[in-house]
């Protein structure tokens, strides 16, 4: 792909590099020849319409799905992400769209799931303190960390999932629709958090349908369409450009609506 020529050459270290990633589910090609680069201290927004393959790509990087073909290079080394544990141990943390929390366990248990302190004699006190610290960093409004996840609201669950991804000091964080279920203040907190994570020199991949959020934090916007790369934009790209890349046409429902409204406004005064 030559689309990368649009971006300014970043001097920073390349954290993650995908070349020619394809993923097939039976006859359906969910991803075709995807290329993607993420540098340290960079926020890459992944946008695209429903079914564009964003979540599939995130799942490939999280080790949930294995790519049919293509290479993944992480910190300069080619890697095979055969299962989620491998991805986690490399330092790729993921907040899934469905959050992947265990509803029967409490907040502390969920944050530390699979990474419990002192495995033969769980150190509940240290885990609870660390959980509170993480949640307070996120300005989370969690009433009690000893309640099962089932008793929390959607936004609170989202915060727990984000807190969990930060636990292991990852090198790359992927957030699949991180602000979809959040209130105004918490959305701002999450965006702040993403910026803080970027300042710490981590790479961030963020999926969102909210162009406002994307423009607010992203350094680059990568557009997927029907499982293929469809251009890379800077955050100052116009809405028109982005939408046409996402939907694949100048003439689409969004632009038609915009032009209708413009016409109506012109004829009105």
């Amino acid at each position, binding site marked *: 792909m030559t689309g990368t020529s649009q971006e300014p050459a970043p001097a920073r270290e390349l954290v993650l590099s995908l070349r020619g990633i394809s993923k097939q589910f039976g006859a359906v090609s969910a991803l075709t020849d995807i290329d993607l680069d993420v540098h340290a201290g960079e926020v890459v927004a992944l946008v695209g319409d429903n079914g564009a393959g964003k979540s599939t790509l995130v799942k490939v990087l999280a080790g949930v799905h294995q790519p049919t073909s293509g290479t993944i290079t992480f910190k300069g080394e080619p890697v095979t992400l055969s299962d989620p544990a491998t991805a986690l*141990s490399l330092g790729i943390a993921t907040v899934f769209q469905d959050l992947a929390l265990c*509803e029967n*366990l409490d907040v502390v248990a969920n944050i530390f*799931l699979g990474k419990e302190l002192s495995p033969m*004699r769980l150190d509940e006190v240290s885990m609870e*303190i660390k959980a*509170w610290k993480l949640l307070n960093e996120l300005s989370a409004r969690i*009433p009690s*960390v000893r309640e099962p996840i089932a008793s*929390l609201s959607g936004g609170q669950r989202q915060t727990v999932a984000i807190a969990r991804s930060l636990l292991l000091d990852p090198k790359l964080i992927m957030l699949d629709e991180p602000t979809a279920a959040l209130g105004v203040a918490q959305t701002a907190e999450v965006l702040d958090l993403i910026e803080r994570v970027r300042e710490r020199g981590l790479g961030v991949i963020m999926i969102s349908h909210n162009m406002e959020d994307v423009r607010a934090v992203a350094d680059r916007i990568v557009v997927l369409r029907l499982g293929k790369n469809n251009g890379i934009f800077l955050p100052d790209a116009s809405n028109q450009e982005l939408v046409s890349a996402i939907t694949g046409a100048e003439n689409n429902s969004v632009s038609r609506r915009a032009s209708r409204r413009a016409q109506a406004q012109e004829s009105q005064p």
Partner: protein
Amino acid sequence: MTDKVTQNAPQPQLLDRADVRVKHAEGLGGTISAFFDRVRSGDLGSLPVIVGLAIIWTVFQSLNPVFLSANNLVNLLFDCSTVGVIALGIVCILMLGEIDLSVGSVSGFASALVGVLWVNQGWPVGFAIVTAMAAGAVIGSVYALLLNRFGMPSFVSTLAGLLAVLGLQLYLLGSTGSINLPYESPLVNFGQLMVMPAWVSYGLAAIAGIGIFWTGYREATRRREAGLSAQSMAGIVARAVVIVVVLEAIVFYLNSSRGIPWMFGLFVGLVVAMNYALKRTQWGRSMHAVGGNREAARRAGINVRYIYTTAFMLCSTLAATGGILAAARLASSSQQAGTGDVNLNAIAAAVIGGTSLFGGRGSAYSALLGIIVIQSIASGLTLLDLSSSLRYMITGAVLAIAVIVDSLARRSRVSHGRA
């Protein structure tokens, strides 16, 4: 400004008490009302089984005054231990939302193996027991393999195992059909006669109380040092004292007859160990997670296949252990061992005790409580001289009630946000 500081100073903010919307139980009254709130929202814990046990005991005692005699209760404890150990394994499996229908066959097979190796082949008894337990572990690992590699539902694989292992048991015993274990041997003594000396049983009850106090005290101190809320000293002491008094009273009553069987001691020891493993280790946490949401557990980096393998192996090993204890109790390895209602009693005990069939919820103590309920019914009906046909029907009805309570409680938990 200074006003605010002086107001805040005497009450340092605890880390987990920052949110004003949450009600926290304070003191003894608070603990009690919190308990009622929990029950109302469907988090029943051991309450239904304790209520059920009280009803069953009252009914049988009024029908036959021998029922609650110390002698009968000691016999009850002997009978509880064998199927109870099997039920303990079932708790592990149900925790994952799976099932093992072959535990009865595995227990019968283990008892046959011990009989053949020890009595017919002349192996040392310890070696025969270890071999039988290892055979159980192998059977469990086969189920896990079938589930992990071929995605075979445990319901089907263990149903197949039920028949296959029963066949193995009949093949081992051959045409004689039954092997008598020597009466004077330590194994049979253990299963039929050996009881704790009085001082040991009193001592163990006291140690249980001290242990509860010590762990509660240590945790409260650590939490307070770390700036978290902690249980009050009075609460910890009160709990430990109540438990010690109740246990010592039970021990005192049973010591007026033969005393506490060592076999029951072994069973309780296994329950306590299992409770620790499920509550306080990473393995136990992973068990809860896999039972609650398998995919989430996998994405959290838990090796789900390993968890399934350990659970199935543990269940079959415990089933084999239960079978060996049953052989010791009956002083024989026969074709009937492990058949009939053993399977269902073990599963029923775990469910009646409060382990959910839906996975992700349960406790090792449910095996202990559940098997006491099941054996109380069996013992009570035997004392009334009722036929086994009636016993099956009543046990079946109790199991159905337990599952209904489980389902209703689950629905209530979902609507109260506690699923």
